[in-house]
C-alpha cells in the first residue's frame, strides 16, 4: 500500500515536471516568434515601453490589454483604416491623436501571429545587462592589478630581507665592507675608455633628442583634441557601417569635407535618444544646441540655437591650398588613405603627418587613371611622351609649386 502511494506520488511529480517544462518551452517559443515578427514589422514605428515614448505611433506595453479587447486589437492590426471607417469610437480617437497617420495594414497576419506579437509586447524586452557586465569587468581588472601589487611587494620584501641577511653575515665574518660608489669610482679610474664612450653616448643622444624635437615643429601628427561631444566614430562608422560621405557629404563637391550640421545628426537621433556607452548625456547635447524636446519629439519654437563648437583636428597652414573634392571625387581616394582607420577610432586623431614631403611623396607614387574618356587625347599624349611608363600625379604637374602655394 505504502509503495503504491509513493509510486503514485512519483508519477504525479514526473507528469507535473513534464508539463511545466513543456509549457515553458511553448511559451518561450511564442515569445521568440513574436519578437522576430515585432522586429520585422512593428519596431520601426512602435517603441517597446511606456505609451509616452512615441515614435510614429505610441509605445506599446501590457497596458494595451487593459484599454482594448483582443478582438479589437486583431481588427486594428489587420486593417486599421477599415476599423476607422466603420466608425469605431476608440479607433477614430487614436487616428486623430496621431495626426491622421494611418498604421500600415497587416492583412496576412494569422490570429496566432498576432497572439505571438502581443505575448512579446506583454513580456516586454529583456533587461539590458550591459551595464552590469561593465561593472564586473572593471572589478576584475582592479583585482588582477591588486594581486600583481601584492606579488611585487612580497618580492621587494624578500630582496630587502636577503640583503640584510647578507650584510649581517658579512659583519659576523668580519669581512671589510666597501662603499659601493667608491668601488665604482676606482673601477672607472682603471678603465678610462668607459668615460670616453659615456661622453660619446651623451652627445649623440642629445643630438638625436634635439633632432626629434625639431622635426615635430609644425607637425601635429597624433593630435587628438578633446571634443565638446563624446562622438564615437567607431560606433557610427565602424559598428553601424555608416558611410563617411553620409555625414561629411560636402567632401565630394567642396574644398572642405564638411562638419555635419546638427540636422544630419537629427536624421537618426530624433528617435535614438540613448547611446550605448554614455546614455542620454552626450545625445542631449545635440538637443540642447538645436532646441529639441526628446519627450514630445518636437522642436522648441523660437529657441536660441547655438553651434556645437567642434575642435578642428587637421590644420593645414594657410600657405598651402588643399581641396577635398579633387582628391575624393577626381582621384577617387578612400578617406582612410589620409585619415587612417577612423572607423576604429573612439576619438579621432590626426593620422598622417600632413607635411609637404608627405604630400609630394604620394603625388610621386600615385598613378593617374588614364581611362577617363573625357581626357582621352590628353592622356594619349602623356603616355606617348613617357614611353609607356606609369604616369603619376607629379608628371602631370602635381609637383608644381603653384598647384598648392598661391
Amino acid at each position, binding site marked *: 500500500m505504502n509503495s503504491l502511494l509513493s509510486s503514485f506520488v512519483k508519477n504525479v511529480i514526473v507528469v507535473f515536471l513534464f508539463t511545466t517544462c513543456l509549457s515553458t518551452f511553448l511559451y518561450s517559443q511564442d515569445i521568440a516568434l513574436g519578437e522576430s515578427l515585432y*522586429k*520585422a*514589422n*512593428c*519596431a*520601426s*514605428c512602435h517603441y517597446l515601453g511606456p505609451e509616452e515614448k512615441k*515614435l510614429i505611433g505610441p509605445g506599446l506595453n501590457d497596458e494595451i490589454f487593459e484599454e482594448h479587447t483582443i478582438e479589437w486589437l486583431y481588427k486594428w492590426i489587420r486593417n486599421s483604416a477599415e476599423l476607422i471607417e466603420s466608425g469605431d469610437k476608440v479607433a477614430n480617437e487614436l487616428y486623430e491623436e496621431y495626426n*491622421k497617420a494611418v498604421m*500600415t*495594414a*497587416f492583412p*496576412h497576419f494569422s490570429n496566432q501571429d498576432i497572439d505571438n506579437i502581443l505575448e512579446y509586447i506583454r513580456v516586454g524586452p529583456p533587461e539590458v545587462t550591459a551595464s552590469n557586465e561593465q561593472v564586473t569587468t572593471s572589478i576584475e581588472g582592479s583585482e588582477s592589478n591588486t594581486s600583481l601589487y601584492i606579488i611585487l611587494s612580497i618580492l621587494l620584501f624578500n630582496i630587502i630581507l636577503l640583503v640584510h641577511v647578507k650584510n649581517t653575515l658579512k659583519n659576523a665574518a668580519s669581512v671589510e665592507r666597501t662603499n659601493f660608489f667608491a668601488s665604482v669610482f676606482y673601477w672607472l679610474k682603471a*678603465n678610462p*675608455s668607459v668615460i670616453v*664612450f659615456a661622453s*660619446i*653616448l651623451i652627445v*649623440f*643622444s642629445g643630438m*638625436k633628442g634635439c633632432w*626629434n624635437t625639431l*622635426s*615635430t*615643429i*609644425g*607637425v*601635429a601628427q*597624433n*593630435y*587628438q*583634441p*578633446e571634443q565638446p561631444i563624446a562622438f564615437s566614430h567607431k560606433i557610427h562608422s565602424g*559598428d*553601424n*557601417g*555608416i*558611410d563617411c560621405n*553620409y555625414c561629411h*557629404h560636402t567632401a565630394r563637391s567642396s*574644398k*572642405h569635407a564638411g562638419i555635419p*550640421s546638427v*540636422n*544630419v545628426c*537629427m*536624421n*537618426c537621433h*530624433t*528617435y*535614438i535618444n540613448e547611446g550605448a556607452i554614455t546614455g542620454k548625456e552626450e545625445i542631449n547635447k545635440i538637443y540642447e544646441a538645436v532646441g529639441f524636446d526628446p519627450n514630445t519629439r518636437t522642436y522648441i519654437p523660437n529657441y536660441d*540655437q*547655438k*553651434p556645437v563648437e567642434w575642435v*578642428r583636428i587637421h*590644420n593645414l*597652414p*594657410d*600657405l598651402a591650398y588643399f581641396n577635398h573634392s579633387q582628391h575624393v571625387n577626381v582621384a577617387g581616394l578612400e578617406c582612410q588613405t589620409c585619415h587612417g582607420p577612423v572607423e576604429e577610432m573612439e576619438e579621432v586623431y590626426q593620422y598622417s*603627418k600632413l607635411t609637404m614631403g608627405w604630400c609630394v611623396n604620394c603625388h610621386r607614387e600615385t598613378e593617374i587613371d588614364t581611362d577617363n574618356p573625357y581626357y582621352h587625347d590628353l592622356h594619349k599624349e602623356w603616355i606617348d611622351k613617357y614611353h609607356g611608363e606609369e604616369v603619376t600625379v607629379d608628371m602631370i604637374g602635381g609637383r608644381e609649386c603653384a598647384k598648392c602655394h598661391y
Partner: protein
Amino acid sequence: MLNKLTYILVLVIIVTMGCGDSSSDGRELTRHPGYEYMPNMYRSPSYETYSANPLFNDNSTARLPVKGTIPRGYVPFEYENTLDDYIKSGEELINPLENNLKNIEEGEALYVMFCAHCHGKNGDGNGSIQHPLYGAVPSYTDDLLVRRSGTTMKGLSDGHMYHAITYGFNAMGPHASQINSDERWKIIMYVNELQKENN
C-alpha cells in the same frame, strides 16, 4: 671581460637609438597641437570656414542662407510636408533624368553612401545599423503590405520616394540638405532597379 661587455652595451644603445623614429607605430596621442615656427605665416587673420566669428551673434562663421533667397542651381520643391502632398507628388512627379547606365551607376554609388546602412546594400531592409528601431526597414521588393502611400513598397512611385527623401518619412529623417535634386533622382533610378530585382 668587463671591457668587452661595455663595448657591446654601448654599441647596442647607439644602434637602438638610431633606429628609433619619431613617427613609429606606437602612437603617443596628445591633446596639444604642437608648436609652429613663425605661426603668422601659417595662420592668416581671415576667418576660416567653420571658425568662431565674433562678428555674428551666435559666434559662428557658418551662416544660413538669407531668408527668401535660394542658392544657384537649387530646384524648389512645391509640395508640402503632409501626407496629402506625399500622395499627390507620388501621382504627379516624373523623373526628369534620362534612364541610362551612367545615371544608374551614379545612383548606386550615392545609394551606398546615403541609404544602404538602413535599407541594405540590395534594398532588402537589412542595413548595417544595429539599433532595433532601424531593424524593421521594409524591403523594396515587398508586394504584400499596403503602405500609407496607398501602394506596396514595390509599387512606390518615383514621386513618393522624392518626397520621402526631401522631407523624411516615418523614422527616416529629411535628407534634403545632404542630397541635391539631381542626386535624389539618380538614387530613385537605382531604387527602381532594386524594386525589380529578386522577382
